[in-house]
């Protein structure tokens, strides 16, 4: 089947000495950060022509793999989640990235970290099965607000709703859980989404905010629709991956504004797949595979894929792989290209 878009390689960013796990676009500045099992974070800058150049490497001091990254919405602070069980908070001082704070408490490997949309809350999760919520205070101070022990296994990913203070977590126990703050009480889990038949690796909210995508070891991506204030239901199962799906990302892309934007997924089969999603008139979901690329990191697993959130660059996709590289792609219309 001929697809209407192609995944064009823009640039390859080598440098990590071990597998590259995660990549994160700065929301306000032309910066991109990647992290790796080599315990470092590499920061790149890019210009309007999408030329990327290496800016600096942060030797984090984490004693084990840096598994994931999150920029604060201000773009001024970077959080690192490490297998050494700690979360590092990094801020720039006289040009250098300094560790401004270290969040301890997890018993074992931290897997993911995420800032809420307002930047006032930080969530982290770990193999110790817990999800922690921290409040961000001035002077890089943090207060632990909640330790949620809802999952029965390793928690792989945490992700905040794009505007509301709703947190979602994905786990090796095959479920996704959502949490809310009860102002008179404590954070609590108000919803458990079941359906995946294996580990849920990654989560991504839709740009229009009411859908959540989840990537799983069961080779599928599921799309969950908000059907009530505090209720989501599975609306679609995207199939086609031949192996585990490790990462999913959802952005507006260059899709028509009447659509729900582009979902990209990567994983063990080495493919980058991009779907355009839209709502049918009966409000069921329509999906269309618009582009795919095999061997995105040659023979290696692709560990993460993230759409650039910045205006004008929203067709840019960054991926990281077991080959230690970060690769930048542009999803382009074949017609435009000709």
């Amino acid at each position, binding site marked *: 089947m001929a697809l209407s878009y192609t995944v064009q390689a823009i640039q390859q960013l080598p440098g990590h000495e071990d597998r590259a796990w995660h990549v994160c676009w700065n929301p306000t500045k032309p910066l991109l950060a990647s992290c790796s099992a080599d315990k470092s974070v590499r920061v790149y800058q890019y210009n309007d022509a999408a030329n990327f150049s290496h800016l600096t490497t942060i030797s984090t001091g*984490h004693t*084990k793999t840096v598994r994931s990254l999150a920029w604060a919405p201000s773009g001024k602070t970077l959080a690192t989640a*490490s297998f050494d069980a700690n979360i590092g908070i990094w801020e720039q001082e006289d040009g250098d990235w300094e*560790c401004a704070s*270290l969040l301890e408490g997890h018993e074992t490997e931290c897997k993911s970290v995420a800032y809420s949309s307002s930047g006032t809350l930080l969530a982290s999760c770990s193999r110790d099965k817990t999800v922690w919520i921290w409040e961000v205070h001035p002077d890089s101070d943090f207060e632990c607000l909640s*330790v949620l022990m*809802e999952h029965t296994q390793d928690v792989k990913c945490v992700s905040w709703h794009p505007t509301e203070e709703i947190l979602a977590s994905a786990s090796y126990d095959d479920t996704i859980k959502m949490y809310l703050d009860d102002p008179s009480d404590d954070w*609590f*889990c108000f919803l458990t989404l079941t359906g995946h038949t294996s580990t849920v690796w990654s989560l991504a909210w839709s740009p229009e905010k009411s859908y959540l995508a989840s990537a799983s070891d069961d080779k599928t991506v599921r799309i969950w629709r908000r059907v009530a204030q505090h209720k989501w239901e599975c609306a679609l199962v995207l199939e086609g991956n031949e192996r585990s799906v490790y990462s999913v990302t959802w952005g507006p892309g260059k899709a028509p504004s009447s659509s729900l934007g582009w979902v990209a997924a990567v994983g063990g089969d080495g493919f980058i797949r991009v779907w355009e999603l839209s709502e049918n008139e009966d409000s069921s979901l329509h999906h269309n595979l618009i582009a795919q690329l095999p061997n995105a990191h040659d023979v290696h697993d692709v560990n993460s894929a993230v759409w650039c959130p910045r205006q004008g660059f929203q067709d840019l996709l960054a991926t990281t792989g077991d080959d230690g590289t970060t690769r930048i792609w542009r999803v382009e219309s074949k017609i435009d290209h000709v």
Partner: protein
Amino acid sequence: MAFSGALTLTDLSDFITPSQACIKPVEQTNKAPEKQLGAASTEIHIDSGGAYYEVSPDDPALSAPPRKLEQAQISLNDCLACSGCITSAESVLITLQSHTEVLNFLDSNSPGESYKLPTLSIAPQTLASLAAAISSRTAVPTTPRQILRRVRVFCETVLGFTHVLDTSFARHLALREHVQEFDERRAQSGQMPMLASACPGWICYAEKTHSEILPFIARTKSPQQTMGTLVKEWMGQTWRKLPHEIYHVSVMPCYDKKLEASRTDFYNSVYSTRDVDCVITTGELELILQEKGWDLSSPVPGELDDPPPSTLPELMVHPGTSSGSYLHAIISHVKTTSPTPLVLSVKTMRNSDYEEYILRRETDQVEVFKGAKCYGFRNLQNVVRKVGKERGVRVGSGAAGRLAGRAQSNRALERGLDYVEVMACPGGCVNGGGQLKPPASTLDAEGYPRDWEETGVAQNAKWGDKEWTKKVEEAYWSVEQRGDDADQLLGRVLDDLCPAGLDHESRNRLFRTSYRAVESDVVGLAVKW
């Protein structure tokens, strides 16, 4: 399943949970017999009693008789020494320090040379939990004092205990010692803030994950262990019994008290005995009552009378918190010893589990004391962070190395904390993991009668226990102080225990303990994802 606190540690979400990394169960101390050349392989058979036997399947007649296999066992000391778990594994505790252990002992404790005087000490929080449960079940308000009298009758007549006491006088002693230690630390500009030492969950956690905090933890023994000293050393004297001639059981709101009693610090090597021989939880006491068919809702004669002139004052009230009033004991001490009048202000930080108490001089509003009450695992995290930051002690490892200069320069100029009452359970000891669970409601949300246990529906998944904890708290404070002059007795106890006067050495021996960091040697599986 019945709503008993005996079998489940908890289903609340703020407790410290056991670790996945317990390595002990896979250890096998059974030595394999020397393998003969060409010997047949063996099989394992299980007999009707559930015992495991190793047998040789080829020729049973010729080979050795079936060899009974040992079960791998974990002792409490293994738990204390291992850094795998943050705290105790409940299953381990249940098998080794259990109510059946107590019943077995009582059964085998026949008069004779090896007879031990069975003595029971009950925590006030345990009595509050039982009082709340009975009050709610019978709709007749019942106080902890009535419960104590009823439990006493049960334990003396049915179980054969010779003495049934509550631990409030031991707490009185511990509080006094705690205040004394606070003064010592302040005078010698010792490690401040001083952190409470009565919660064994907190002690275990600090020893295993935050050794840098240990110098700040008070060395005062908990009321349970003070009671152990009182019973075995002081009351033993009056009963003309040596420490090992007394079997001392305590009933506690908390599983980790079992770990505390097992610490080597509380083992008397001269007499080969522990200050507290066995700890059971409130839930386990309820189980014993159930098994013996005793109904705690029936009054016993004289349960409303004034306390009999007994060895120790009964149910002393220490105003403050239901977790022992450690902070309030210090506040009232600071207030009464201050040369100028002080005013107390209380600030609730996020909820009632985290409150700051500040004493200011009435004249010029200058702050002279800052204390905090801090309950629950996440608040405990914040205390560790705060103390680490204020005192500039190294917290953690790894990227912290890059942190040094920055943390120092950011240190706040505001006055640091002087004292923190730390408890691992949200709500404190009245909500301990060993307490009774709230009685099941028989009405559903719409008011229809429903058997929740039968339908298998988990009701009130979200913090259903908060309301219940409030009830236990109310029950806890429903005791009014009655009876003896405790301080006169206290003087007598101290005179008896250290006739030469209470000096540094005897203080350490009788009322203080120590802590040690447990280094992590357990490495989880090399996880690559």
